[in-house]
């Protein structure tokens, strides 16, 4: 299975949200990394067929998804960034409704709903109205609905927003388990969500795809550019003014700053192994500073 994005652009009036994006995706987890307004959500919406490109096209195994139409959407599981719901529907009714939209027969849908409620630990809430659930619970309902039809292509936009750390780990594990024979597209700000499961990272900036590679290859680019220095409290401000500081860790003998720098920033600086947070800071330093 191959999903090809061919020269896709999207304009909203004068604003260009996506600029000539091209790439190919096969089975595995792909993580879209980008700051707010980078075009992640727009691209995911196009892939989820809830938006259409202004130019370019998306092909599944060589066939335009607009031509595939229902057949494409039948393979899709989509969790949007801001999940909609009917506040007066119970969790079970909501999922049964989505199952009906996905064309799942009633008895099969019932069994699938029960199975997924178990998987997202919401079996005790099946009779609760969706409007009464916490943000994290609603997000779990959203995850369950995306998986109802055993989709071959899963598109999840900021899926871990609102989940507590335990739920995030569960979701991560769930995704990596099911990703073997599926294309999973995930966008997030939380880099730890994708650290161990992403087959490739797609880095978007101002609507353009600036990098697409395996995480390790991207981290290779940062080799010799990440450093740690020990600083006294009155030196921290000066370091922050001069360098991109990705993290600070208070130690017994001072504060350890993690710094991105093309060259060794100080004689006592030690080279560190780059991680995805460094990578994020490297590409999106202004947004990270916000």
């Amino acid at each position, binding site marked *: 299975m191959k999903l090809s994005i061919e020269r896709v652009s999207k304009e909203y009036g004068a604003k260009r949200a996506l600029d000539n994006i091209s790439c190919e995706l096969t089975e595995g987890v792909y993580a879209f990394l980008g700051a707010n307004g980078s075009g992640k959500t727009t691209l995911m*919406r196009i892939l*989820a*067929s*809830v*938006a*259409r490109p202004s130019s370019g096209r998306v092909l599944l195994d060589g066939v335009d998804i607009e031509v595939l139409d*229902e057949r494409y*959407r*039948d393979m*899709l599981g*989509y969790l*949007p960034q*801001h*999940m*909609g*719901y*009917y506040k*007066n529907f119970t969790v079970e009714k909501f999922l*049964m*409704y*989505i199952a*009906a*939209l*996905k*064309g799942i027969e*009633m008895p099969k849908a019932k069994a699938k709903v029960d199975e997924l409620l178990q998987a997202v630990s919401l079996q005790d809430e099946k009779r609760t109205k969706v409007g009464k659930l916490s943000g994290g619970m609603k997000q779990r309902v959203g995850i369950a*609905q995306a998986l109802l*039809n055993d989709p071959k292509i899963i598109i999840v936009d900021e899926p871990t927003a609102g989940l507590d750390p335990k739920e995030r780990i569960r979701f991560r594990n769930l995704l990596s388990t099911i990703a073997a024979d599926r294309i999973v597209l995930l966008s997030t700000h939380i880099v730890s969500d994708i650290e161990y499961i992403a087959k490739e990272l797609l880095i978007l900036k101002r609507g353009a795809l600036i990098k697409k590679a395996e995480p390790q290859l991207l981290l290779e680019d940062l080799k010799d550019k990440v450093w740690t220095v020990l600083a006294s409290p009155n030196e921290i401000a000066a370091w922050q003014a001069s360098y991109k500081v990705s993290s600070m860790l208070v130690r017994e003998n001072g504060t350890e700053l993690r710094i991105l720098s093309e060259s060794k920033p100080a004689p006592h600086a030690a080279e560190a192994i780059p991680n995805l947070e460094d990578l994020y800071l490297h590409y999106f330093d202004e947004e990270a500073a916000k």
Partner: protein
Amino acid sequence: MKSLLKFELYKIFRQKSIYAVYVLLLALIMISLNAQQAVNNSAYYKDWEGTLTAEKYSQAEAAYSELMKAENEKASWSNEARMQAAVFETIDTVRRLDETNKYSVEFLPGYLTQLEKKTFEYRKNALVLRMLENVEVNKLYYHKAPAEMIDFVNIFGTMLSGALILIGLAPIFSNEYMSGMDQFQLSSRHGRRIGVRAKIAAALIYTSFVIVVWQLFNFVHRIVVYGNGGWQTPLQQIFQYRAAPYDYDLLTFIFVQLGMHALGAFGFALIVLLISAWCRHTMMSIVLSGAVYAFPIAITVFFKIELGKYEDILDFTYTNVMRITSLFAEFKVINLFGLPVLYPYVAIVVMAVLSIAATMLLFYTMKRREVA
């Protein structure tokens, strides 16, 4: 489709506002109807019921003269005498209607000979002649119940259908956009086609429900107040339909009226769905759909715009098709390539074309729809 239809029906019927508005409007209508004099006068008609012959006409005339003579000698007319007089006046009206009809049937063949055949004018007059030949108005029954049932549709029925279609159906798509549910629908297998079909089916079922409920209310209320009878009375005995060339008794006309009203209401429901699919906000959807509904009333009543020879176009608006009266009240035809086509048939075609167009446009809209 079946399970989606159930969900769509559930979503429509669980809106509390439709029940609140329905009950409120029916209560107001009930108050308005009870404010009128509502008495069953069927007993006064018993002796005269059936086909009115020349003999019965003379008997009625004689009885009326006698009554006038007796009552005019008193200081004032008794209630009973007034009721009896009303019966005689009705008989006299029927006689005049019958005479007018007979005159037309006798006059038209001669007039046709003066017209050139195969012209629109000739065909139009030949058609009205054929229709009038079948009309028999000389029957008398106490028909207050069916007459009031028919009258209800013109104002109250149309108001109830319009208001409830607006409230119940204007949110059908726009609410999905506002709640964010459109993201799931548009990305799902059935969201853009079968889902839309289910919404249309649910909307039409809801519209039927609205009509059936007020028609039941109308039927029961009229029967209780005026008694069960008069169904076989000719349509022409209702004041608005005196000039109607249609050979209907009141029972038949009630069904014709119901069918025509339903056609207009279904057409209006479909246009409301289309507007809802275009509007991101329910309020905007209600306002725009309301404007479509109020259009003919606004033109003629509020803005008093003179449309001249185009005024009859308003007869084919959703609201006026639902009201029906202007379609059947007199002999009105359009000239279709030299052929006269009666207004009710034109209305059926207009409603069918508008409904098909609205449905196709709705499917097209939802096929192309993008989330905001």
